[in-house]
């Protein structure tokens, strides 16, 4: 009498899919469903899997500041900012994190297990599992980001590599200004020479062609027109045409970086062909949305979930819940054009994201978790939620639900809100994922922990 599952995961990002995958693998034959409002937002994700890039700010500066007096400028702000030196080994830093940090709840072992599940699910698509140390990956802003796992397509681009690099941008791909990126990289002291050049992508693509259009052309190796060296027009397969376009600018570079658009479905083949044509290593620089590495990651996680038997329901928002007489969650209610459709389950995982993902909502009056109305601790004066310095130590960055040792959200008295609800990913408070670069790692570690624990409860 209703739609019924053993484990219902609300949210379809990295945390949600990891929770579902862990639950499905743990509870053999159990029914696991991912419920999400929209198509996965991984299209907005860089595709980098950070665990911990920077140590959080010292506890002293993270507490009790920010009266909103607008006076705190200068030296104070510099102190408030995240440390500039990336962590070389994120695992070494976990014991020093504050008690409320999600990594402290699932422990170092929990973080490692989350990564192991990720490595298994994504296979050849990712690199970085050979070491505990962070890799340094160039970003499309010309910064260097410490991260634990990176797409195979970015592997040849690591900033620790001393081979000289040519960065190739395209006139219509305005989010990647190759000469600027090259200058930025040199200015942060990378151990290689970086040159940047902006070219026209071969073929008559529109000025507002989507990144996916270029990726599709490279996937299919479509024949495109290109004006050759002697001024005549020739028709070549897209990969060859692109390589020909780049060749003249190669110089001494041993590797060539492109904005991440080198194929959607066959990126390894596209890279291999370009490398053969160019005689140089080829890499992608992760981009903002729409992000090809994010889409490939989505594809890999969805495939792993489906293979494990996870079911997906997408298209309508979860807006509320039902409980039984003992206070357990009985169903999540999905709003559909004015009707409420209940999705029943034995165990629930809340993986709806943080303030950006809309798993945490706020208005002028307060901050809350909108589906289960779990408590989100926050200062009552909203001028205490933020710092005036844009990159300051904002309290809002750590807003989220507080949880017990089993990731169950806590109520105001410190007890769990519901015995069969767990939270995972950015909806959890106590970490500033943007400053410390821990977003994907927290999602993997807590997602796996929550999914696995939920499946165990079902089994017992």
């Amino acid at each position, binding site marked *: *009498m*209703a*739609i*019924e599952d053993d484990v219902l995961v609300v949210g379809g990002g990295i945390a949600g899919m990891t929770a579902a995958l862990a639950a499905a693998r743990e509870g053999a034959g159990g029914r696991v469903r991912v419920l999400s409002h*929209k*198509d996965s*937002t991984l*299209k*907005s994700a860089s595709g980098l899997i950070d665990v911990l890039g920077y140590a959080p700010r010292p506890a002293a500066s993270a507490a009790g500041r920010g009266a909103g007096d607008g006076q705190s400028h200068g030296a104070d702000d510099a102190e408030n900012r995240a440390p500039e030196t990336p962590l070389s080994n994120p695992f070494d830093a976990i014991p020093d994190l504050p008690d409320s940090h999600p990594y402290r709840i699932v422990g170092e072992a929990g973080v490692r297990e989350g990564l192991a599940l990720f490595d298994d699910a994504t296979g050849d698509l990712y690199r970085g599992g050979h070491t505990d140390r962070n890799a340094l990956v160039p970003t499309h802003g010309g910064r260097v980001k410490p991260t634990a796992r990176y797409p195979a397509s970015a592997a040849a681009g690591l900033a620790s590599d001393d081979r000289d690099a040519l960065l190739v941008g395209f006139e219509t791909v305005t989010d990647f200004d190759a000469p600027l990126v090259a200058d930025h990289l040199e200015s942060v002291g990378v151990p290689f020479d970086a040159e940047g050049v902006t070219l026209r992508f071969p073929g008559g*693509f*529109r000025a*507002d*062609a*989507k*990144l*996916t*259009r270029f990726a*599709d052309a490279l996937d299919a190796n479509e024949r495109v027109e290109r004006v050759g060296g002697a001024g005549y027009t020739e028709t070549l397969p897209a990969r060859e045409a692109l390589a020909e376009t780049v060749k003249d600018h190669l110089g001494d570079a041993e590797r060539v970086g492109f904005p991440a658009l080198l194929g959607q479905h066959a990126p390894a083949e596209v890279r291999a062909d370009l490398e053969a044509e160019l005689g140089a290593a080829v890499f992608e620089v992760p981009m*903002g*949305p*729409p992000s090809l590495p994010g*889409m490939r990651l989505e594809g890999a996680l969805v495939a792993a979930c489906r293979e494990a038997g996870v*079911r*997906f*329901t*997408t*298209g*309508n928002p979860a*807006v*509320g819940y039902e409980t039984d007489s003992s206070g357990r969650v009985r*169903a999540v*209610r*999905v*709003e*559909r*054009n*004015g*009707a*409420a*459709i*209940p999705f029943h389950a034995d165990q629930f995982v809340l993986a709806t994201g943080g303030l950006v993902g809309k798993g945490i909502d706020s*208005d*002028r*009056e307060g901050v809350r978790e*909108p589906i289960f109305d779990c408590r989100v601790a926050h200062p009552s004066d909203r001028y205490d939620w933020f710092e005036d310095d844009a990159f300051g130590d904002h309290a809002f960055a750590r807003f989220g639900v507080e949880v017990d040792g089993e990731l169950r959200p806590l109520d105001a008295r410190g007890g769990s809100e519901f015995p069969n609800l767990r939270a995972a990913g950015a909806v959890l408070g106590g970490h500033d994922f943007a400053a410390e670069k821990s977003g994907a790692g927290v999602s993997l570690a807590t997602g796996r922990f929550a999914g696995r624990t939920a499946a165990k409860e079902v089994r017992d």
Partner: protein
Amino acid sequence: MSDTENPETASEVRTENTVEADEFEPIQVFPESEEMDLRPGSDDCYKCSTCDTNCPVAAVDDEFPGPKFQGPEQWRLKRKDDHDIDDSVMSCSNCMRCDDACPSDVPLSQMHNTARGSFVENQMDKLSREYVRNRILANYGALARLGSKVPRLTNFVMGNSVVQKFNEKLLGITSERDFPAFADETFRTWWKRRGGVAASKKRAQDARAERDGANVESDDKRVAYFHGCYSNYNTPAVGKAMVRVFERFGYEVMVPPQRCSGTPMFANGMLDDAERAAEVNVRELAAAIEDGADIVASCTSCSMSLRQEYPELFDFEGTASVAARTYEALEYLRVHEDLEGALDDAEIDGEGDAESENFAYHAPCHARNQGLAGQAVELLDRLEGANAEDVGDSCSGISGTYGWKDEKYDTSMQIGAEMFDHMESVEGETGLTECPTCAMQMEHGTGYEIRHPLEVLEEALVD
């Protein structure tokens, strides 16, 4: 109705807090307008372009600028009086995938429908071949009413290759496709001949008596069937299956007077036609709700229209309640009955000696938007003898009337290519889908026989 209700939660979630009148509020800068205000939707767009990457038309048609332009960007351009709507809006197939893609809840399809309506009303030559052709396609239901009066003659004429060439040359309706055949007897004629609602009440009571013994008191088990044009004129077997399956679960079925849901009219920018049809439908369906019925549709584009497009575009009394009380058929049974249990206890036989029947299931885009994409496969997993495999999340490409247009035919087939490939790789040669035009496309691309999930349910559950 025990498990559902119609809460005010949705509106509560979006309620803005009011503030003191003398305090500056950015959200109050723009004056109140009686017209539908798309500004908040436009403001919500942060240009992530996810919609563009999900658009099936943009993926194969380099000339099509994509939903982000058609929606929020074009809406902004239109704020200046000297800007026309770009004619590319007519290349949007109204699959509504962009709605599902948008992480920021921008009402893209509402914007497209509005822009397309304005383009057709103000910028399209009413004597042009394209307008006449689109008007004909959009009003398929009205034509079908005439054609189905003499089904054999109509089928003969429409199947004639000379007529098909004529349609293509004169009207721009592709001759590549075979016009769908009209049934010898419409669903509504069958329904009346069978005894209408009185007969249905009796059968529902009998079914309840058989299952629950003496407990036949259940006046609230009543649904109003929105059959739409296609299962009335072309595939009455789907309508009959709906009636029999619902009666088997003890529901009295009503079949209120109704017109086209409006889907092909929205897609062709014929908003006046759509409004006239919608007014009748809302009035009749609201009356059925007054009589204690929920609305059930077998076509996922019809249910999409009643649920989402009516409230987004029209403001008749009862529109919201019709939207809230409308369900797709399997969805309704799944939420209100133990459909899964019933399927666990049932089985179907494969064709001939085969032990089971394989179905290549395609989820229509409009089913996807209602959150129903996985439903048919999940349910048929329970049914012994049925083996349904999802053929992937690509669009079939036909999008109702879109793939019937001569100049859109190639685009339509390019979009469908991925689905055809996946269908070919599934064992067996039977397709399965809820949408009648997706079914046309599936058959056209593969030659498979295409069935509706309700027909499989009928085979499994109705004696």
